[in-house]
């Protein structure tokens, strides 16, 4: 996969590296069986980058590999200019890199036995030196950022699915990460809540110069926020094309990519 275009949102190479996320010949999968081969991603700092593809193409596995949950079968992942994961081994300073990334899972993955505020305190477990009061203040601030200031003392089961997703984003933001990974943030949400999340993601990029890598199916959301996207194909098990979403929709040489954006059923799309 070729290099992604910069949108100029990021701080660029000012802090010693150009790309927030890079992969080199990455094969991803489980139990020795690859679901995607030879993934080459280059995500510039400050970009919103979307991983696209049909159901079962392996985009969530790619993201799990990027965040260190699934070891690469082959190749290497570099985050923020440092090697983060490599086939057969994990980088020595992976723990330090982990503190600079935030991850939101598709179902939120909030801790059910903790309130939203307590959930926001969990990422501080590995960081000594902050008082409980400070941690609580930061947690309340992040919850306020996602519009959940009044719900800090509720448990995840007491709020809606959309609120759980926002709370999960707040938890992912408490350490002010350089990269935010989001797994289908808009899935299952009503259009208004979904638009609110899009706004939040854009704000994170514009105000905090955060790099956002997200898995999404929601075309409206993709066109609203994405600077660049990459399309993973289930049949060839490779990343077919990448670039700004509008270009992928209108100019991609791959029928499968155009079919995805134009909502053409797969069998028809393959023939176009």
């Amino acid at each position, binding site marked *: 996969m070729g290099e992604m275009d910069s949108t100029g949102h990021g701080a660029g190479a000012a802090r010693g590296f150009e790309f927030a996320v890079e992969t080199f010949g990455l094969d991803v999968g489980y139990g020795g069986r690859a679901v995607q081969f030879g993934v080459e991603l280059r995500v510039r700092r400050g970009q919103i980058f979307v991983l696209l593809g049909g159901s079962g193409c392996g985009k969530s596995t790619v993201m*799990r590999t990027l*965040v*260190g*949950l699934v070891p690469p079968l082959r190749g290497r992942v570099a985050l923020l200019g440092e090697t983060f994961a490599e086939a057969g081994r994990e980088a020595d300073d992976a*723990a330090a890199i*982990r*503190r600079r*990334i935030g*991850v939101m*899972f*598709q*179902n939120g*993955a*909030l*801790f*059910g036995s903790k309130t939203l505020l307590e959930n926001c305190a*969990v*990422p*501080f*477990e*590995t*960081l*000594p030196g902050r008082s409980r009061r400070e941690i609580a203040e930061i947690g309340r601030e992040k919850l306020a950022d996602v519009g959940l200031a009044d719900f800090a003392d509720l448990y995840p089961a007491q709020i809606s699915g959309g609120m759980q997703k926002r709370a999960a984003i707040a938890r992912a933001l408490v350490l002010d990460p350089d990269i935010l990974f989001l797994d289908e943030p808009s899935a299952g949400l009503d259009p208004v809540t979904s638009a609110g999340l899009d706004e939040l993601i854009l704000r994170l990029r514009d105000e905090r110069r955060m790099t956002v890598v997200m898995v999404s199916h929601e075309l409206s959301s993709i066109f609203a926020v994405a600077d660049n996207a990459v399309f993973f194909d289930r049949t060839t098990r490779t990343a077919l094309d990448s670039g700004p979403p509008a270009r992928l929709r209108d100019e991609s040489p791959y029928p499968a990519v155009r079919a995805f954006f134009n909502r053409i059923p797969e069998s028809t799309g393959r023939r176009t």
Partner: protein
Amino acid sequence: MPDKLKNEDLDPGNGASRHALAGVAEWTGRAVCAFFFGAASLAEFCGRLVVATFKAAFSRSIRSRLPDFPRVFARAGAEAVPVTMLVGFLLGFIIAYMSAAMLNRFGAEIYVANLVGLALVKELGVIVAAIVLSARSASAFAAEIGTMSVNDELAAMRTMGIDPVLYLALPRIVAGALALPLLSLFADLAGLVGGWLTLSFFGYSAKIFIAKAFEFCSAADLATSLAKGAVFGGVIAAAGCKCGLETGLGSDAVGRATTNAVVSSLVSFIALDGLYAILASVAGGG
């Protein structure tokens, strides 16, 4: 002779029994392998836990988990007291009743007190408590952690750089190790009451019962029993946590993890108890 053998080989009944024998042998082999692999896996998990504990001995990770410890300890310990005492009481009552019926023929029913005291303090009290801990807490730990695994909460922890072994398993294992000796004391106490109740039908007072019950029990026996309880408690909790951490995908996996937790914790502590009995016998400690 070769012809006879050939005929036996052709006999379908004989072939079927051989097939059944092979099946039993295969099943036994698999079961033995599974047992040893399971034991090795649990030992490996305990090793990982020890390493993780030492690595983070003075870090915030452990210190910050201490406030969670009382909740886990209360569930594994205090909330298990009534059922432990009930089972202990019934066990003491049944042992005394069965043995009194026999010893009464020889006019030796007073020795029931010795039997109940010795059996409970040295062995049965801790076993009753261990069974209760396995059934109540190992399963609960596996279900709780397994559900977290299914909901991606463990994955979320890992992305935050938090080791779930340390964060979730350690407080539960410490709680198990502390709760089981205390529960075994309650089981002993209730069992003695059950034993005395039986002997009271024969006209023996509580004072005599207590004096006889502790005639052959020393403080060392009690201390050994408590120490065994601490080890069993830790192992039972570790087995529950391990099964939870290894939960696969889906709600079915949580059910399987819970079942595995109860089975592996029961097998683990009974195997350990047997090992201890052999070692004590070899060392002359009886």
